[in-house]
């Protein structure tokens, strides 16, 4: 009678649906699934959101914030969007390679005016992540399975995920961050790469290394190029901050253009998430610099196939906005101006934090905050010191010491300095190993298990 009753209700609610007895599931397809380890960045962000302290602020997420702590829409983006609305554009599918005006403009933006454009295969990509994944899929399908990919230690944690999921299992870390000096461990990096097998893939950050903010100097890049040629490495460059790091689009493309000038064959994943605030629109490009046009054509067609089975064609909206910015001189100049203002605010906050720390006689040397570049700073704070900032001062950052500088503004910089001083005097840094967010989470989990 219960079944009859439920059936009556069902008939009333959905008269067209067949009257079948209320069925229980006989199976549980997902029975064996386990909860994964929590993501450190989103975990910390969630803690920040849950915190009710009125003075809290966050240095966690790598997204630009204004001096008022708000998200920022570039005025040029708003202007272009309004114009687009008036044009009454259709919403038809793009090809697999994306919007042609966009890809041409992107190629020019990263490589500069170049006579080699016809041997560079360019595809629109789902921001940086999408570009990385498509490239990794291509590598996995077209290079020997044993080909290792060398990745800086530390790096953006999601790099590992993307490469693993694409089938690139052979991942090797090369030293990068010198925890004693908060700068680049260049000799360690070069020693490691010298020992790598020939034709390995090496992942580089074009500028504004995530998470350390530490980039090689031009002289160091020259040495890298020399080694790449010697070992026939395949450089894979992640360019997420062109223009955002120094405020100068050409300066921030230095490493990419050097590689091109030096006649290397390499791959670039390019993102507009930060430098044009296109975060959620998912706009980026993927470039394969090949030895000649015929190879470029073959590579181009094969990359198409990598895209076909993943999402077929990319979203139009963000690419249209960028195409109109990249290909119109007036728009482009306005963008450059606004981008410089954004980058300048970050640079100003770096100076301001360092100066504030020195002003109140905080122990230690804080020059690295000004010497590092881009969205993040590896502050050098230990996990215990970070905990003091988080728990006592309600200032949130990653327990690796990674701070997102855009969370700093004229209203909170002094308080941040006080908090840091408090942290370093209360819990002096003891351990000297490199902290990455991944190792900290694993440590935590292991401690919990015990």
């Amino acid at each position: 009678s219960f079944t009859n009753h439920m059936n009556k209700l069902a008939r009333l609610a959905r008269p067209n649906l067949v009257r079948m007895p209320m069925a229980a599931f006989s199976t549980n397809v997902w029975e064996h699934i386990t909860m994964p380890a929590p993501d450190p960045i989103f975990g910390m962000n969630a803690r920040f959101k849950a915190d009710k302290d009125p003075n809290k602020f966050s240095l966690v997420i790598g997204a630009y914030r204004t001096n008022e702590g708000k998200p920022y829409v570039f005025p040029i983006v708003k202007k272009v969007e309004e114009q687009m609305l008036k044009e009454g554009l259709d919403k038809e599918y793009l090809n697999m390679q994306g919007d042609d005006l966009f890809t041409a403009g992107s190629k020019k933006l990263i490589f500069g005016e170049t006579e080699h454009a016809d041997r560079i295969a360019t595809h629109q990509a789902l921001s940086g992540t999408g570009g990385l994944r498509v490239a990794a899929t291509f590598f996995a399908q077209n290079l020997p399975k044993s080909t290792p990919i060398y990745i800086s230690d530390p790096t953006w944690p999601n790099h590992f995920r993307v490469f693993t999921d694409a089938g690139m299992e052979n991942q090797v870390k090369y030293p990068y961050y010198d925890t004693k000096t908060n700068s680049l461990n260049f000799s360690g990096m070069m020693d490691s790469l010298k020992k790598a097998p020939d034709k390995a893939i090496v992942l580089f950050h074009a500028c504004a290394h995530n998470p350390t903010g530490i980039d090689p100097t031009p002289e160091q890049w020259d040495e890298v190029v020399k080694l790449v040629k010697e070992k026939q490495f395949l450089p894979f460059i992640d360019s997420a901050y062109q223009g955002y790091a120094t405020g100068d689009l050409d300066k921030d493309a230095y490493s990419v253009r050097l590689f091109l000038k030096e006649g290397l064959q390499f791959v670039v994943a390019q993102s507009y998430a930060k430098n044009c605030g296109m975060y959620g629109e998912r706009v980026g490009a993927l470039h394969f610099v090949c030895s000649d046009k015929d190879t470029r054509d073959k590579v181009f067609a094969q990359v198409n196939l990598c895209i076909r089975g993943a999402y077929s064609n990319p979203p139009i909206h963000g690419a249209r906005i960028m195409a109109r910015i990249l290909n119109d001189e007036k728009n482009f100049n306005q963008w450059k101006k606004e981008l410089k203002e954004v980058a300048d605010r970050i640079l100003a906050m770096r100076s301001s934090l360092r100066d504030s720390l020195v002003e109140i006689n905080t122990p230690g040397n804080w020059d690295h905050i000004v010497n590092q570049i881009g969205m993040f700073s590896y502050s050098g704070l230990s996990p215990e010191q970070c905990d003091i900032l988080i728990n006592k001062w309600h200032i949130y950052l990653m327990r690796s010491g990674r701070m997102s500088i855009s969370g700093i503004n004229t209203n909170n910089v002094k308080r941040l300095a006080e908090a840091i001083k408090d942290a370093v005097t209360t819990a002096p840094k003891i351990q000297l190993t490199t902290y990455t967010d991944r190792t900290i989470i694993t440590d935590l989990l292991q401690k919990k298990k015990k």
Partner: protein
Amino acid sequence: NMLTRIFPKMQRFASARAFASIWAGVPQGSPDPIFSIRDRYLADKSKDKVFLVVGAYRTEEGKPYVFPVVRKAEELLMKENLDHEYAPIIGSPKFLDLSKKLLFGEKSPVLDRTVTNQTISGLGGLRLGSEYLFKFLPGSNEKQFLISGPTWPIHHTILEDAGFKNLINYPYYNPKTKGLDFEGMKNGIKSAPKSSIVLLHASGHNPTGVDPSQKQWEEILEVVKEKEHIVFFDSAYQGYATGSLEKDAYPVRLFAENGVELVCAQSYSKNLGLYGERAGLIHLVCKDKEASSKLASNSDFLIRGIWGPPPIHGARIVTKILETPELKKQWKDELMTVSERIMEARKKLRAELEAIGTPGKWDHIENHIGMFSFTGLSEAQCKALEEKHVYMGPGGRMSVSGINSFNYKYVAQAIKDVVEKYPQERQINK
């Protein structure tokens, strides 16, 4: 050396070729048949040419169509001065919730035990759904993935790229009747090993245009339950196929409410004309809340390895329309108009084919549902049609929206001519 001093450019090329191209071993990719046909169409200079290939809606004037309600939604959104920040990795809660309800029904009992993620349109949904299945189903390496014979060719690409190598066809299209080979379909699904995965088109089957009836869906349900199969629905035409959002979701709702743990890819490409905005989702209906919450806890990692957070623009348009009653109503009306034009085009073409005495039966043109129709024309006949500037998709698949009141007579005459010239029908049923 001296040469490179005189010709400095040679220096640069010399370095580039100093080692052989890394990609020397990359094979020439085979061209996509659809694009080849399209290229021939574009090169065709005849003013009578008709393109019946790509599955995108066209107006009576043969133009792309943006739903007026979509334009309205975009104008409203512009006034809200929204930012472009990342959406949550799985998509915005409102978009997920409204889409789930649209597909399963406002009061569906499965809503609270369904994992829903925004994806890069329906194709992204198919890929992400396949990733869930491949990664989390035990024995997925060997599992049979049943797909209709024929099906949209890209299904193969997506499933294989996700790792499923064991793709098996179940009979679907009967070339003699130009309808459903229902017994074959049932037997195909029944004879697969227990707990196989079965891909079903919710409505508007691509490429045939042949859909099971509601009664036939009930029988398929019985077979699926008997074999404890996992069902993967591709719902790309909800509302577009018959004009009714409820009718086109019937099989998904039927299966979900009758104990099948199904996966469903949902697309707004056709029914909201959002093609290039890539608005879509994947839904995974689970046995209970505990199962769905465990599955959901893995979503972030899965998505972040493929494309990261989803694109916001199309999803915002959908949300605006679904959450605003007047806009939702306007959408339903416009959707009905669109699907009625398709049905009208089918009617006209069939009537004309019969009126001019085209050999053979043509009622299937009108009976087929949705974007496409398998005309029954052979490869030779389709090739001949191209010479008459009428372009069909592979297998004689016709995209009906390319037919309108200006060209249906021309198309009918062209079909009659090629059928008479090449009378032997050898149906390509790939």
